[in-house]
């Protein structure tokens, strides 16, 4: 009986032996048919919820303000909602955000494959992440044959959860943390941080880096980028040095959310236990928990209808305030563009305006690119949006002051646009 045996020693019964970092999930699947068959469902999921779901709808069409906000950056061309894990490889190859012209210095690096394939752990071990990231996306393509799979999250043999992405390992180290010391429950969140985090490409080697050296709270991340003087792109005409935020689920959820503080992990909601016959196992069909709230929330919350109604309310409030913030940033962009076109503009004031625009937009994006429409940490979302709106309006005022032109104080610029913007070409 198992309690006479220290749990560390309890091993899974394995029919087939799996070699370390085996990229082919179907081999692992012979040992664990339940996990494999549920993982495969992520391929065909396509049901939507009010604010998310698995259909890959276009954010640029759903909210054309984002075309303006990302103007001059590939995200203004193509930006879809995410879908299931097994589509990762197909989707990264299909996005119009790629630049596959290796002659162009701005071509897409191999780094973009980092979170899309179970071939990576093996490749990183073999050639090292530095060499990997120096290659172009094109050059890497022949080495990548598998989409996300078991090797991205598990150690073969023991099946324990591990950090497979060297960028995560290094980011934790930079904070003096070692994932090897984490408890099993902590790993049920940290394993998602292999990918669901804000990142940037450091230097010419496009080295994958998480901006966490000062901490993972939003102001610490902004401070990090300020110290580094980093920018993702320059906003056309306005000339603001912009930052793009990307899926910071981990940073957002762990910033003191109700659930995180109560010890709940990502996997508790997104990979709830399901039973197949007598035994239960973790569903590997990862998607919106609003599609199976009975399983995802129902064990902790007896009234799962109640919590789902609550999610609706939270998301609606966040979505509405997010639109106010977008409008404020668009008004600011309009003003800064007009000011920048004026050769007599006061450079110091205009730069202050740009700095506030940069921060306001990164803060907004941190909430917007986070995929739960605020649910992972509702108060944090609203707090950040309140701060962002305040900065955006101040950016607009500074831009107007820089050229002493009252017309720059125009508000509601987006609402007056007709027709509304469409995705860039």
């Amino acid at each position, binding site marked *: 009986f198992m309690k006479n045996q220290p749990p560390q020693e309890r091993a899974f019964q394995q029919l087939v032996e799996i070699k370390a970092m085996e990229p082919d999930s179907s081999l692992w699947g012979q040992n664990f048919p339940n996990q494999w068959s549920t993982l495969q469902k992520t391929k065909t999921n396509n049901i939507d919820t009010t604010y998310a779901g698995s259909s890959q709808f276009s954010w640029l069409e759903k909210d054309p303000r984002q075309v303006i906000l990302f103007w001059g950056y590939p995200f203004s061309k193509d930006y879809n909602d995410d879908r299931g894990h097994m589509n990762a490889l197909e989707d990264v190859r299909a996005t119009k955000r790629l630049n596959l012209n290796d002659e162009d210095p701005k071509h897409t690096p191999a780094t973009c494959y980092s979170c899309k394939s179970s071939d990576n752990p093996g490749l990183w071990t073999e050639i090292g992440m530095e060499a990997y990231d120096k290659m172009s996306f094109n050059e890497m393509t022949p080495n990548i044959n598998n989409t996300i799979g078991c090797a991205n999250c598990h150690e073969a043999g023991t099946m324990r959860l591990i950090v497979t992405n060297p960028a995560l390992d290094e980011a934790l180290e930079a904070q003096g943390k070692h994932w090897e010391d984490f408890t099993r429950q902590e790993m049920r969140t940290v394993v998602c941080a292999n990918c669901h985090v804000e990142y940037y490409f450091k230097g010419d080697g496009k080295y994958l880096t998480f901006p966490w050296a000062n901490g993972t709270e939003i102001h610490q991340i902004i401070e990090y980028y300020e110290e580094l003087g980093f920018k993702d792109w320059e906003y056309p005409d306005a000339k603001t040095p912009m930052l793009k935020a990307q899926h910071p689920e981990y940073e957002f959820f762990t910033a003191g959310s109700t659930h995180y503080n109560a010890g709940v992990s990502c996997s508790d909601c997104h990979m709830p236990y399901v039973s197949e016959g007598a035994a239960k196992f973790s569903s590997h069909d990862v998607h919106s928990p609003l599609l199976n709230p009975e399983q995802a929330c129902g064990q902790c919350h*007896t009234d799962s209808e109640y919590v789902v109604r609550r999610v609706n309310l939270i998301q609606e409030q966040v979505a509405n305030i997010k639109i106010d913030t977008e409008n404020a940033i668009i008004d600011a962009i309009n003003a800064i563009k007009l000011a920048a076109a004026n050769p007599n503009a006061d450079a110091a004031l205009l730069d202050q305006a740009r700095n506030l625009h940069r921060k306001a937009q990164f803060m907004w994006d941190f909430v917007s690119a986070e995929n739960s429409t605020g649910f992972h940490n509702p108060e944090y979302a609203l707090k950040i949006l309140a701060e962002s709106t305040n900065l955006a309006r101040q950016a607009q005022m500074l831009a107007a002051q820089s050229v002493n032109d009252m017309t720059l104080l125009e508000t509601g610029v987006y609402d007056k646009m007709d027709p509304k913007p469409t995705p860039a070409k």
Partner: protein
Amino acid sequence: MLKNPFIIAIAAAVIALGAFVFVTDAPAYGGSAPETCANCHVMDSQYENWYHAPHEKWTECVDCHLPHENFVAYYLEKGRQGAKDVYAFTTGNIPVAIRASEKTKEIIQENCIRCHQETVESVVMGAQPFGRYCWDCHRNVSHGARGASGVPYQDSTLYPVK
């Protein structure tokens, strides 16, 4: 000289104990009927919530709250807990909200696994210890929707939800 008071003391103790057993129906406390535990109305709410929770059909308090690996451990722990409970009750040293101690929690966890071993076998296995209580998720299992809620008249079905 010394012997008499000693005998008297022993006699007095025996009489007192007899009276105590008679008055309090102490032998019942050696049994396992849930009503026994609920004798102390300080545990009314646990009783009520257990009574209405899904496990009422299958379990008694002691199925979860006492160790079952062997009968020595069972009675030792029963004695320890009982003494503690009676001491707390009679001295009136009753905490505002009664909470399971860490030791109690470990005993309960063992018991969940004892009954549900087959179900949880594959999920509690693995290279790292399971390290969390079953009722972190199964919050309603033993004592109702919100744990051992002591608030009566709390019924959200009666309350309009906007």
